[in-house]
């Protein structure tokens, strides 16, 4: 949240000034660190449309802007479960599929999975997808827990006996109840999609029990902190952890970061490109979405951000190192253990927020 406030926000504001002079401008609001370095330049070169690019690091931030109305963005990238609720709130306009010929590049199976949130894929196209799992510092975890550390299990984080030993090198959780609760439920062997208050209370109990060992709850800070050894275990987004690993390798200080999809199961999510109902320039928005769906563009992004895409045509262009990594493009055995991101009704939502705040603060 804060990160988007500072540097990117300033850059966006600065970029917005000359943009006024031009007719064709598209305002993109995407997750931080979620695009290839040259994507925007290529788009501008090809279409002549100027891009104003701004970033966020949580669905909540995005949603607050969208619900307030007149966000001024043409394309936003909510996660599927948020997309679903926002569709209900009337935030989006249906996509004009005649303007999206590149839709044919998309993986029909994954688009079908995404249709669970967005029937007939009326409002959204998959940008990237991934899982929520565990990012960890291989050496530091081994140093504290030995060779047989349960790095492929949620118990690494949620079992106080391990968490306690890891506390001094730093455990972080995503600052989002809708991401952490299902993981805690999975750890308990309960239905990750459960809305039963008693299940949620139990999950809250798990989260609260490890509270003393948590360094912080944040949804993007852990990328750099993992990379430079500031923290050693994070419940995080797959691609973010890979980015951390890549940064650590670049830094060359001997920090090795690994990502695992816990064997108990993990949340699968889709980040969906969608067009707000009050987008100032929906034509340009469609052009952007169609451009992203070009195989080479999507492949660029995947190669840069280490997230899986849903673009079948792009796969030949993706680095084999990424394409063949089961943690990024999971095989059938892992896919079977993934569960979708949950959408809660207002009552459950309030309960979860309350439990979450309590678990986080210990109050």
């Amino acid at each position, binding site marked *: 949240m804060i990160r988007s406030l500072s540097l990117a926000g300033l850059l966006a504001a600065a970029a917005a000034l000359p943009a006024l002079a031009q007719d064709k401008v598209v305002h993109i609001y995407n997750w931080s660190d979620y695009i290839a370095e040259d994507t925007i330049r290529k788009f501008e070169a090809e279409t002549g449309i100027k891009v104003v690019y701004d970033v966020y690091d949580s669905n909540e931030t995005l*949603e607050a802007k969208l*619900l307030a109305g007149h966000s001024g963005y043409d394309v936003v990238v909510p996660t599927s479960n948020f997309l679903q609720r926002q569709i209900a709130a009337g935030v989006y306009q249906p996509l004009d599929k005649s303007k999206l010929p590149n839709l044919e590049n998309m993986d029909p199976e994954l688009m079908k999975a995404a249709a669970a949130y967005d029937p007939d894929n009326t409002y959204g196209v998959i940008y990237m997808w991934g899982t929520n799992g565990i990012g960890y510092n291989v050496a530091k975890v081994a140093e504290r827990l030995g060779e047989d550390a349960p790095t492929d299990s949620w118990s690494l984080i949620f079992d106080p006996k391990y968490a306690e030993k890891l506390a001094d090198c730093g455990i972080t959780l995503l600052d989002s109840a809708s991401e952490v609760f299902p993981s805690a439920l999975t750890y308990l062997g309960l239905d990750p999609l459960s809305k039963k208050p008693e299940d949620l209370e139990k999950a809250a109990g798990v989260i609260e029990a490890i509270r003393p060992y948590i*360094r*912080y709850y944040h949804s993007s800070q852990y990328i750099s902190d993992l990379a430079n050894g500031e923290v050693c275990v994070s419940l995080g987004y797959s691609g973010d952890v890979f980015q951390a690993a890549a940064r650590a390798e670049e830094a060359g200080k001997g920090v090795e970061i690994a990502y695992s999809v816990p064997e108990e199961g993990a949340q699968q999510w889709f980040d969906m490109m969608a067009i707000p109902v009050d987008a100032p320039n929906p034509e340009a928005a469609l052009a952007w979405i169609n451009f992203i769906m070009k195989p080479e563009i999507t492949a660029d992004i995947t190669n840069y951000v280490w997230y899986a895409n849903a673009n079948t045509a792009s796969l030949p262009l993706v680095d084999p190192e990424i394409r063949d990594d089961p943690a990024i493009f999971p095989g059938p055995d892992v896919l079977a253990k993934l569960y979708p991101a949950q959408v809660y009704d*207002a009552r459950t939502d309030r309960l979860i927020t309350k439990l979450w*705040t309590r678990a986080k603060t210990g*109050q």
Partner: protein
Amino acid sequence: MSAVIERVAPLRWTAALLAALGLRGRTLVIAVPMLWLLIFFLVPFLVVAKLSVSEPAIAMPPYLPLVERDGARMTISLSFENFGYLFDDPLYIKAYFFSIRLAFFSAVLTLLIGYPIAYYIARSSEARRSVLLMLVILPFWTSFLLRVYAWQGFLRSNGVINNFLLWTGIIDQPLVMLQTNFAVYLGIVYTYLPFMILPLYANLVKLDEALLEASADLGGRPLPTFFHVTLPLSMPGIIAGFMLVFVPAIGEFVIPELLGGPDTLMIGRVLWNEFFSNRDWPTASAVAIAMLIALVIPIMILRTAQQRVEEE
């Protein structure tokens, strides 16, 4: 001033126009701040107040309109349920108290650190004074956010302080300083220190040296002189500085968010949570309104104290 108005044509016309509307210079002087307050304080406050009695909904914006029209019928529905939540859940009350406590101790710490600095500046030679004041104000030239981020760099486990301490061998394990209440206190004290120093300085620089001499002359050693003369006479400055630190610190969000740990339960964070995570704008507004009311009481107490001190 009026001479300038006479000479510059657009100003002259504006003045004539305003005069025709019955607005004269003096009225305008009052009208401008009034208008400012109206637009930037009262109107937003009313918007928030309105929100706080609305009902949340999955919609855009995410609450139901207060006024509904159905032909000739008009229904106004006010929901006070949002305020009810605040008392249902001890979280809010706890957050209020935590915030007030943290703000209070921050203000006390700021005072303890700021007073000697302000005193020293006020007692320095004039040339030196302006340099020192400049140094106090200097940090404002950098973004507040950047400065708080810089503290992260200092406090983190492999940050400047820990690296130094490890290097000297004073500690062999990095101290956990970031994401603790200690870091929040540090951040608030650091950020708000100028707001304490400046009013204190303004007060202390006016302190009549002859009073200190009189005290010494009557047998007052430096310490008793400080407690019986300097301190009571600087009360207006202390109260002003205290208010300038205490009040904004209660609602502080950025510092606890960036430097605080998960258990730094500041009302600003609760509000943020309510607004963003819960997208419950009405409850968030109710929290804000309640915070304002909760704030008004300490402010009133301090204001009365200040007035009483100033009258004397």
